[in-house]
């Protein structure tokens, strides 16, 4: 991977707002991922979910979000790293994907980042799961932040698909 000059300084990039992207960054283990802040509806602590039968292991179940039923996806399990054993310290990030609202179970929410759109890199070819689930890569404090493709994450949730 090429090394890049990253632009973390928010005040410096206000002028470039149109060309920049604000991300909510969260962590799964050691790795940091991000989603665009405009898609995030709510961040809440893990408080259990009702398991859904006949779904893949990364569907942790459904929760009640003020009267509507919202499915929770375990991002770790979605990456094929096994199910998270959630505690009260784990976090659910509720986001909108198209018309639907979904929750993503992550270890912790770490930061809000502003990145220039020009600084987003393509995901290098290789593992198909990586290219499928990530929209791109940005660098923050010399560490990689994967941009999650929400549509890809929530697809294929049913057992038979």
């Amino acid at each position, binding site marked *: 991977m090429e090394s890049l000059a990253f632009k973390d300084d928010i005040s410096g990039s206000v002028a470039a707002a149109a060309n920049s992207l604000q991300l909510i960054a969260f962590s799964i283990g050691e790795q940091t991922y991000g989603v665009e802040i405009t898609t995030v509806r709510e961040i809440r602590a893990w408080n259990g979910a*009702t398991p859904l*039968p*006949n779904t893949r292991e990364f569907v942790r179940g459904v929760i*009640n979000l003020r009267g509507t*039923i919202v499915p929770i996806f375990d991002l770790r399990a979605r990456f094929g790293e096994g199910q998270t054993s959630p505690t009260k310290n784990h976090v659910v990030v509720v986001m909108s994907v198209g018309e*639907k609202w979904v929750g993503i179970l992550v270890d912790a929410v770490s930061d809000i980042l502003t990145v220039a759109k020009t600084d987003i890199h393509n995901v290098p070819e290789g593992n198909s799961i990586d290219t499928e689930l990530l929209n791109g890569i940005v660098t923050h404090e010399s560490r990689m932040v994967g941009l999650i493709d929400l549509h890809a994450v929530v697809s294929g949730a049913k057992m038979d698909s």
Partner: protein
Amino acid sequence: MSDLDDFKATYFDECSELLLELEEQFAAIEEGDRSSDRLNAVFRAIHSIKGGGGAFGFQGLVGFAHAYETLLDHVRDGRVELSEPVAALCIRANDIVADFVAAAKDGTELEAGYGAEEKHQFDALTSGDPDAAGEPMEEFDIDFVPVMVTIAGAEDDNDVVAEEPLSLAVLDDAFEAPPLAPEAGHWIIRFTPHSELYARANDPLLLLRELGTLGDIKVRAVLDEIPALADFEPFGVYCSWEITLSSDTVTEAAIAEVFEFVEGNCDLSITHGEAPVAEEALDAEIEAMPSFAELMAVEDEPVAAVAEAAPTAELLSFADLAESLKPALKAAPPLMPPPLKQAVPAEEFEGENDRRSGAEDRRNGVQSIRVDLDKIDRVVNMVGELVITQSMLTQQMDETLRARYQELVRGLEVLAQTTRGLQDSVMAIRAQPVKTVFSRMPRLVRELATKTGKKIRLETIGENTEIDKTIIEQLSDPLTHMIRNSADHGIESPEKRLAAGKNESGAIRLSAEQAGGNILIAVEDDGGGINRERVLQVARDRGVVGPEQALSDEQIDQLIFAPGFSTASEVSDISGRGVGMDVVLSNIKKIGGSVHVKSWTGKGTRMTLRLPLTLAVLDVMLVKVAGSPYVIPLSSIVETIQCARANFSRMPTGGQVLQVRGEYVQVVDLASRFEMTTEVERDNRFVVLCEAEGGVKVAVIVDDIIGQQQVVIKSLEENFQSIEGIAGGTILGDGNVALIVDVQGLKSATAAHKSAA
């Protein structure tokens, strides 16, 4: 202008009711009921639609309705026979009127010349001359002389003018007394209608306009007969007209022809050249009256009040009547003050005349208000939440609390009853007869019959069965698909039917009935039944069914609901694209219902929709499986049995059946079915015996039964997707989500699993 929009909305509401009535009446007429009540009802409906349409300036609609109305008038009088073709034309005309109304409502334009052919046929039928196209009635403006009437005995402190807003158009010029002096080549016509004339929904204005086409006319209303208010009979006819027609060419016969339609319902005298009575005196009288503009200026407010009371032009003929009710009498006070009551009987007068039979009960007996559905929905939702809170409160009461706070317990019991009552009442508000969607089907069947070249009769049964309005709205699409399917795939061509020894015309029967907490809606046809061989073949070709899989007849029948499935070898206009029956299934599932199909080879097919009575609240049994809460709709539960006492038997393949009351029932262990592990011992678990579609039972094994309660159904698909065996979700009193078990889905999925194995 929002007032006008309100009136429009009311008008369209009324139109849809009237169009419904039209369908009903014609359904009876098609069955051979040619009674005059039917025709009158049809005539009134069209007349009302036309009248309102005129007020809002829907030219196309009015033009067409007018021509249609003329035909109906002829039919009613027996001048045109209501033969099969005429009835068919009328039915088509109803559809066209419906299209015009729909276009006017949506503000869209129909293609130019839409309905012109039918209109031409009306004209041909009514005049015998196909070239005489129905003339738009707005073309003639007659110089009406507004005159003022004071009804003897009227009280002074009541000062509402029995004015009618629509007459303003005619009367917008300043009052001017036209001379009634006879001129060369003129005719004097004295026209005194009888009450039957109005009862038959004839309108003197139309006759006068017709006269106006013959030459210049001057019209004077004769009001001498108007009695004192005390003696005023709202349905009485007190008004007659004296018309001076100036024309050199008109013959007496031509004038008589104008009144041909009302012959026998009026007194008519036609004289040539003679001067009308007391010409000068009359002129003087008229001049003594205040101008109409003056009148309007003073009486502005009350007029507006009356205008509001009569928003549509439905009162068209009343307009003329009211107009002529305002002549001056000798002792005319400067401004006439007929009491407020005047407006009320006046309106009813028209009402009675115009829609006598059907609407009578509505006016006199049942009182109703129109309420925005949103407002009702809000109440329904809140009641739903209230019911859940109430059941949550009840759950919180444990034995110690019960013993300690008896008053609280009693209060909660009363609360439970009251909420239940409240809920039932609110549901009753939203309940509507399925008629509203059934009545759209005759038209569909007619169109399908035309397109397919088949002969199809539609029978409807139980159209007064009531269901929640939200469900009714969701029903239209599935029913349309089902009827299309029946017409296209079910009913055979007339030749085939004759060859099979059946009646040439096929029958589709649409029925609705209530069965416990459900509504059953069935679409039956007496066609060839499902071609199982072909269905199975197509299913194998498309990979819906594996090549080795053996299916029972019943399972094959259900295949028609598989997505993208169609056996039609050709894609027709009507069906065959394979989007259809799976849409039915998914739509019905969405509203918590289920679909079942049963077919008899060579005899027909029956598709049954089982729908909940209401969407808002569901009575359920709360159970636990592998530590998670599930609910099973109470309506599908037959009984519950402790596993220790249940009589299980082993099948050769390792599956289990339950023997209950001499029946062997398939067993579904929810934990293993949902691939979850449970630590509860077998003997401590419970069997919930459920009844799936078509009376088939299935024994569902759960870990524990927690209790009964009411829940609000929440969609899983809103944010996720549908899951096999799960009909939806719900939120419990503690805020957790419980899943609703789809008994029907469990059963059929298990059947598929088994046969796949």
